[in-house]
């Protein structure tokens, strides 16, 4: 059993093809731009406002989740899609996460793990066995900056990333980009270097900052941190594009 706070059928941007995305509760990071703050705590939660207040998360069995995932098999098959585990950080519920991945793999369903990279290394063996593609966040460059922005130092996800790639895992790197907050030269430079070093990085998605999740902070009774950032304009995206080109990044695209 595990705590799931959302299940989206026909997700189009959580990996290849048409996907069923399962959102697991619990996250070790506290990203200042987080668009799913309701995922942080492991336990189910209620909003502090609303009539009636919304609740996030309830217990699901593996079979219950799989029953929903199976309903879209034909769409997974024709599109090259499958199941994506997201969150939160799905590995926070390690047993449930692995059980879901194993079940999907057992039925021939393509699996993606949307991860921030913060998990104990002893999970690596089993993750590599059941995950077809890691959607791997690279949130910031610089040990201290990463800690300041997410609460966790950069070396934690980087070490796991290198390990996955060295052992043949396939990775789609996902880089949330917040103007003035993490879109620095050294970050683009690190992205470019990684892309050249590892053919296992099948693609890099630059995810422009969006504020759609901000209202959820208030619902949870929290103040969204003032990042002083705006959603990037076209000109800003062009500048990112120029940096990535200049620094020789491979297989990237800005969404």
């Amino acid at each position, binding site marked *: 059993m595990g705590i799931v706070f959302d299940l989206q059928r026909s997700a189009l941007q959580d990996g290849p093809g048409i996907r069923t995305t399962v959102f697991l509760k619990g996250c070790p990071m506290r990203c200042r731009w987080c668009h*799913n703050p309701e995922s942080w705590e492991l336990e189910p939660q209620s909003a502090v406002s609303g009539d009636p207040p919304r609740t996030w998360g309830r217990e699901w069995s593996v079979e219950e989740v799989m029953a929903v995932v199976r*309903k879209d098999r034909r769409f997974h098959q024709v599109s090259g899609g499958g199941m994506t585990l*997201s969150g939160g950080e799905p590995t926070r519920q390690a047993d449930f996460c692995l059980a879901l991945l194993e079940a999907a793999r057992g039925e021939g369903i393509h699996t993606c793990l949307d991860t921030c990279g913060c998990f104990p290394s002893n999970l690596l063996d089993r993750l590599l066995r059941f995950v077809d593609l890691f959607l791997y966040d690279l949130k910031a460059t610089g040990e201290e900056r990463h800690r300041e922005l997410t609460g966790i130092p950069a070396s934690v996800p980087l070490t796991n990333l290198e390990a996955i790639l060295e052992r043949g895992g396939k990775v789609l790197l996902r880089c949330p980009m917040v103007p003035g907050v993490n879109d620095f030269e050294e970050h683009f430079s690190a992205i470019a270097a990684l892309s050249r070093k590892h053919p296992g990085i099948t693609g890099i998605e630059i995810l422009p900052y969006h504020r*759609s999740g901000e209202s959820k902070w208030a619902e949870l009774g929290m103040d969204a941190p003032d990042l002083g950032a705006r959603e990037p304009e076209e000109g800003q995206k062009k500048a990112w594009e120029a940096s990535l080109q200049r620094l020789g990044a491979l297989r990237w695209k800005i969404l």
Partner: protein
Amino acid sequence: MPTLQKTALRPLATELEFTRVYRENRDVHPAIREWRCLEVLLPAFFQAMKPGDLFAGRIRHPLCGFSTQPGGFGYYCHEAAIRNVLESSPADAALREHVEAMLAFWRVENTTAKTRAAYPPWVSQALPVDSLAIVHPAYPLYRLGGTQLDYGRLLALGIPGMKAEVSRNFEGAEGGEAALGEALCGCLDLLADVARRYAGEIRDAGSAMGEVRSLAEALESLPNRPPRTFREAAQLFWLASWAAGSWNYGRLDEVLGPFLARDLDAGLLDEAAATDLLVSLWKLMDATVPCWDARIIVGGKGRENEEAGDRFALLAMEATRRARVIVPQLTLRFHDGQNPALMAKALDVLAEGVTFPMLYNDEVNIPAAAKAMGISEAEAVEYLPFGCGEYMLWKKGFATPSGAINLAKCLEIALNDGRCPISGKVMGPRTGEAASFASFEDLWRAYAAQVEYSVAALTAQEKIEYDTLGREAPCLFTTLLTDDCLSRRKAALRGGVRYLAGTLETYGNTDVADALTAIRAAVFENKTETMESLLTAMGNDWEEAEGLRKHLLALPKYGNDDDVADAMAARVHDHVCGFTRDQAAAVGLAYYLVVVINNSMNVALGKMVGALPDGRKAGDPLANGNNPVAGRDRQGVTAFLNSLVKLRTDHHAGAVQNMKFSKSMFTAHRPKLEALLSGYFAAGGAQAMLTVVNRGDLEAAMRGPEKWGHLMVRVGGFSARFVELPNDVQRHILERTLNE
């Protein structure tokens, strides 16, 4: 022949002359009478060309005349409109007296009145009103719609050849048959006269008409020989379709494709010039045909001229992209192994915010139509969606939608012992007080009885309507252009057409399903509510019962791949489709089938239904076609598509599915869109009308975001549904969705 200018001088001159000729011929054979009436009518009906027209054939319907559908039903007379003309004309006592006499004559002599007069009492009782503005569960509709005629033979033979064909078939005919043959030849002469007159008008206009001089030559040739070029062929098709009053055009790729291909190969036309011609034809359709007609079918199985047809289809789609008009309703049939360029072009055109072509899956529709219509698959290859989506058989069958039933109204009166709670009138059988229903099945039986009562009457009505029109007139051009009529020497409605059939428009299907799911859960299973308290809350349109309404709205709804809600939708669907299909034999129709179609009737009829047990408010629009109630499909597009394919397709004559996607689905996410469609079609999806979310949608969503629950928020890893977001965020996302 009187010219347009002369008739315009005297108000109602055509109408009065038409009436005089009709009266003079009242007692001669109906074929001769119709021919003589057409002699007056056609010259007044066809109007002068306008600058920019590349084809001749604009039209004006006289206020009193003869038509299958476009002008009116059979011999028709629009009294209110005629009175308007009288009032705005200079006072002329003699004219007034003539017109009053004309109106008095037609009041009993018009075909609609004669149809109603032919109803037996039980039909009149079940169908007491003809106006869709009056609250009732069921309505007859008066028309001979559903014709998609055989232009191929006319274009192959030309007008003189067609006359010879008639003469050959009617050789040695006597009596009524001879009269029919004579009238059929006569009406071909009238068509030739129209072509000659247009040619003359173009010549008279001289250089003002500029480049259309070559059209004058084309028109001059039509009375003398078969069309030789695409332009001549399209021109003859256009005039003949209007002469017959048939405004759904069938497989034009089969009919016009070979002419087009020949001209292109011979260098008589290039693709740009051919597209210009089609754009001009499309604009003529747009100027003359209402938005729910003008179907043109391209693609699909069973085409004899497939390669030429494909070339026509591609240019037709390009013309649709360029013309940016409401009609024609271009329709692409497709099947495994069809030239993939057709579907690719279709999606390109749709991506630009055009709503055509509509997509029809032959792999599903041919076997389904065969079973529903009780014909072989070889014959069902010629299924064609008519106006709003009713399947007909090309050239061989009519299945006019001559009735409409409001299923939501049927449920409403079933909950009130046959009484309409809005008007207080009894509108159906007394099926018992809802409070006395011991089980859900009691309620189901009451609902089913209300539906069956109306459907049986509508079936009988359809046949009476055909028979009445058939007695009044042979519908000469329709007979001429329908298979089998000439060889059988019979008028289309008097044994000529092979499949005389009917269709019944149903509305509120999904609303009834959701309402029954809710009432079964709340009253009979969970018992959270009594029938009385529910009916009271509905009667007050949920005032001071918002909590109850929210509870009911939260129960399962069709469109979310929910087994309980979808099973109820299937039960409602199977009941009305099955019962309707079984009525045909009793009245002597080849088949009589439900259609679940798409037009504005869901809005108009919704206004006549009070609150429903699923939480719907009084007057809300009913669901569109086979779709979920607006905004209630909230589990994503795959769940929506899975729900759609749970409804059988083999016992009805077409159900319409609307799907809206953001522009990016057609561009950045094109492979995923194609995967969604192929998954849906492979799973049994029959049809799809795809549209791009547009500015109007954005504005609608601002006014009522609750109707936009199906809109996807497409941001990776983001957990939210559109409806869960605050208003300003919704606005923001909608704007972005539009601009993607």
